[in-house]
C-alpha cells in the first residue's frame, strides 16, 4: 500500500499566525492536501495524537512554552508509536540552537526567514523519508510485510 507523497499528513505548530499562514501556503503550493495548523502550542500534543501526522513542522521559540521540551515530548510520542520526522523552524540562528534541536531528535532544521523553495524541498525530503520508514516499519512487523514487498517494486 504505497501512499502518494501528496497524501502525507503534515502538522504545523507555530504561534505566529502570519508564519503559520505562510507555511500553509507553501505546503499548499507544493501540493500537500492534509495540513493541520496549530496556532497554540499548548494544544500541540492533543492535536498530534488526534491527527497522527506523517511530518511535524515545529516552531521552537514560542511564548509561554519551552520549544525544546515540546520537541522532546513530540519525538518520544513519535518513537513510541512509529517514527515521525520532526522539522524545526526557528528564528534562532545560533549554532547552539541548531545543535540542541538536532540532538533532541529533530530530523531537519530551517532558520527563519526561510527560502520558500528550500523549505519545499526539505519538506519533500522528510516526507520521502517518512514513507520509506513507514514501509520499513510495516515490513518489520512481519505478517503485513508481503503485500508491501510487492508494492515496493
Amino acid at each position: 500500500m504505497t501512499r502518494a507523497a501528496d497524501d502525507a499528513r503534515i502538522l504545523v505548530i507555530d504561534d505566529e499566525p502570519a508564519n503559520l499562514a505562510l507555511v500553509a501556503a507553501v505546503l499548499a503550493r507544493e501540493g500537500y492536501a492534509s495540513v493541520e495548523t496549530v496556532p497554540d502550542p499548548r494544544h500541540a500534543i492533543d492535536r498530534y495524537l488526534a491527527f497522527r501526522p506523517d511530518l511535524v513542522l515545529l516552531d521552537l521559540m514560542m511564548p509561554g512554552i519551552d520549544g525544546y521540551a515540546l520537541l522532546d515530548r513530540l519525538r518520544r510520542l513519535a518513537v513510541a508509536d512509529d517514527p515521525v520526522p520532526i522539522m524545526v523552524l526557528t528564528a534562532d540562528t545560533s549554532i547552539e540552537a541548531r545543535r540542541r534541536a538536532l540532538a533532541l531528535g529533530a530530523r531537519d532544521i530551517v532558520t527563519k526567514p526561510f527560502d520558500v523553495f528550500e523549505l519545499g524541498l526539505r519538506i519533500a525530503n522528510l516526507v520521502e523519508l517518512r514513507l520509506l520508514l513507514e514501509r520499513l516499519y510495516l515490513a518489520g512487523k512481519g505478517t503485513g510485510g508481503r503485500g508491501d514487498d510487492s508494492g515496493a517494486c
Partner: protein
Amino acid sequence: MNGHAIAGWWANRALATKGLVVVALPLLIFLGSVAVLFAISRMEAEAEQDVRLTIAIQTDINEVHALLAEASSGVRGYLLTGERRFLEPYQRAEDTLPALFAQLQAAIRDADAARRLARIEALAEQKRDGLTALLAAREGTGTLDQATIGDGLAANKRVLDALRAQIEGMQARERELLAARQDRLDRLRSGGLLATGILMLAGLGGSLFAVFLFSSGIVRRIQRLERDAVLLAQGDVLTGREDGRDEIGLLAERMGEASRLLRAREQALRDGEERFRLVIEGVRDYGIFALDTQGHVISWNTGAQRIKGWHSSEIMGCHFSVFYPGKDARSRSMRNLADAMREGRVEDEGWRVRKYGTRFWANVVITALYDETGALRGFSKVTRDITERRRAQEALEIARQEAETASAAKSLFLSRMSHELRTPLNAILGFAQLLELDRTANSPQDRGSIDHILRAGRHLLALIDEVLDIARIEAGKLGLEIAPVVLSAVMAEAAGLVRPQAEARGVTMICEAGGVPPIAADPRRLLQVLLNLLSNAIKYNRDGGTVVLRAQRVGGIVRIDVIDSGIGIDPEQAGQLFQPFTRLAAGAAGSEGTGLGLSLSRALVEAMAGAIGYAPRDDGRQGACFWIELPVSKTPLPAEFAQGDPASSAIVQPRAVTILLIEDNLANAQLIEAVIARHLPDARVLNAMQARIGLDLALQHRPDLVLLDLHLPDRDGDWVLEELRRTIPALPVILLTADALAAQADWAARGARAVLTKPIDVPALAGQLERALTEGVADE
C-alpha cells in the same frame, strides 16, 4: 743569641730525638763514672801491691842478713869450740839463701835495688865461701891456728860488714821506695775520692739537665696544650704562640687553627641565627610564632603582634586557642594541632579573634616540628590577615556573578531580538516570494512592488545578521573555531563565489595565493571577510577593471591584500571606513550594502587576533587596497583536515610534487607551467606534447597529478585517460579542453578529477591543482 739558636734547634727536634737525649745523657754520665772508678781502683790496687812487695823485700833482706850473721857467728863458735852444733845456723843459711835470693830477684823491679841485690848476693857468696873455707880448714887440719882463724874471721868480718853496709843501703833504698809508693797510694786514694765526688756531682747535674730538658721541651708545652684544650672546649680562640716545629708544636698549631675555625663558625652561626631571628621578628605581614607540644605560645613576632594585638609579654605561655572564636575554640584548635601532627602540616582559613575581640579572616599554616629522633618538639604557626583579600574576592565574585548575569541577559536579548526581527521578516519574504512565483496573477506594476518588497526584506535580513554578528562578537559569543587554515583554498573559494558578480561587470579576478604557510583563523569567518572585501572591490570597481587577491608572508604573520582598480578612497574619508553605517558618498549611489560589512569584517578579524586596514595602492595606480593580517598558525595541520570540506581543509603540504602536463599547445603549456611555478614552487613539471610520450612518462615517473589536454596530435586524450585509469587508478587527472560542451560531458564517470575549459582560468587552475594534490595526499 747563640743560646736562642740552640734552644730553637732543640725545640725543633722530633720528640723521639728528645726522648733519646734525655734518657742517654744520665746514662752516659753513669757509664763514664763507672769507668773512671774502675781505673782508679786498679791503680790503687797496683800501688798497694807495690807497697806489699817492698815490705816483703825488706823482710827477705833482713832475713838474708840475719841468716848470714847467724851463720857467721855459728862458724866462729864452731871454730872456737869445734862443737858441731854451732854449725847449725850456717847449715840453715846454706839451705835457705839460694831460695831467698831467687825470691828477691823475682820480686825486685827497681833497677837500683836489683844492682844492690846482685852485690849483696855476691857478698853473701863471698861470705859463705869464706865460712866454707874456714870450715874446710878446720876440718882439714883438725886444729886451726889462731892466726889463721883470726885472719879468716877478720876477712869474714869485713865481708860481713860490707854485706851489712850493702844490706843497709838496700834497706834504705827499699824504705825510700816504700815511702814513695806509700805516698803515691795515698795520693791515688785521695784522687779517687775526689774523682768519685766529681762524678757524683756530674751525674746529678746531668740528670738535672735531662730533667730540665724534659720539662722545658716537653712537659711544659704539653701542659700548655692541655690548658689550650680546656680553652678550646670553652670556645675561646687560642692566641699563644708555639715556636717549635715538632709534634707538639704542630699539634698546638692545629689546635689554634681549630679554635679559630670554631670561632668563625660559631660567629657565622650566631650571625645567621641573629639574622634569622631579626627576620622572623621583623616580619610585619605574617604572624610567625611557635607553640609547644600542648599548644602554648613560646615565641612571638612583630607581625603576630600587629595582626593579633597581643604583646609578646602578654601572650607568652597562653594557649593558642584564644585566637579562635566561638565556644568550641579549644576543640577546634586542638583538632588543628592533631591534623598538623598527622599530616605534618595543616593549612586553614577562617575567622580568628584579635586581642580586643574583633575578628579577621586568617590564612593559617601550622607545621609540626620534630627533632632528629622523631620526637615532637612543638609547632610553628604562620598567620596571615587576608581579610582585605577576602573582601576583594567576595566583591570580585559578586562582580563576576553580575557580569555573568548581564552577559546572560545580553545573550538572551540577542537571541530574542534575532527571533523577534526574523519572525515578521519570515512572513514578509515568504509571501513576497510566493507572490513572485505566481507571475501570471500579477500586473507588471505589482511585480515591481513585489521585487521592492523582496529586496528591502533581504537588505533588512542582511542588516539583522550583521548587527547580530557584531553584537555577538562584542559579547564574546561568536564562538570562533580557530584552526590551521590553508589560505589559498579559502581565497580560491571566495574568488569562485564572487566570480558571477565580477563577470557581470567584466571585472578580471587575479588570485595569487601560493606559498604562504597555514594561518590561525576560523575558515568560515575568514571566508565571510574575504567575500565582503572582494564584493566591495568588485562593487566599487570600474567596468572591465581588475581585482587582485594576493597573500604573502611577513615574518610571523600573513598579509592578504584585496586591490581594486576603482576610483579609490579619499584619504580624509579613509579613517571612517570601518565605522558602522559609513557608506562613502563615492560608491553609495545605486550600490547595495548594509554599511556594516567593513565594521563586521574588522570585528571578525580582530576576534581572530588579526588586523584589517586600508591603504592606497602602492603601485601609484588608481584604486583601493584593503589588507588583512593574520598570524601564522603555531599548531601543525591535523591530518584529518586534509579531507572533507575544501573551504576549510584544502591543504597543500609543502612537499616536492611531480606534475605531468600533456599538452601540445606551447602557449598553454607555458601558461600552466607559470601558474604551477607560482603556486607550487617546489613542484617538478614534466611536459609531453604527445599522448604516447605522456603515458610513458606517467608510467615511468609516477607523477602526483596529470594535466591532460583532450586534443592531442597522435592519440585522443580519452585514450590516455583510459590507459591511466587502467594502469595507475589512484593518479588524479585534470582534463583540459577548449570544447565547452565536452567539458559538460561525463568526465567524472570516465575517471577524471576535474575539467578545465580553455582559455585557462588561472585561479580555478590553481584551486584545482591544490585540491587534487591535497586529496592525493589524503589518499596516501
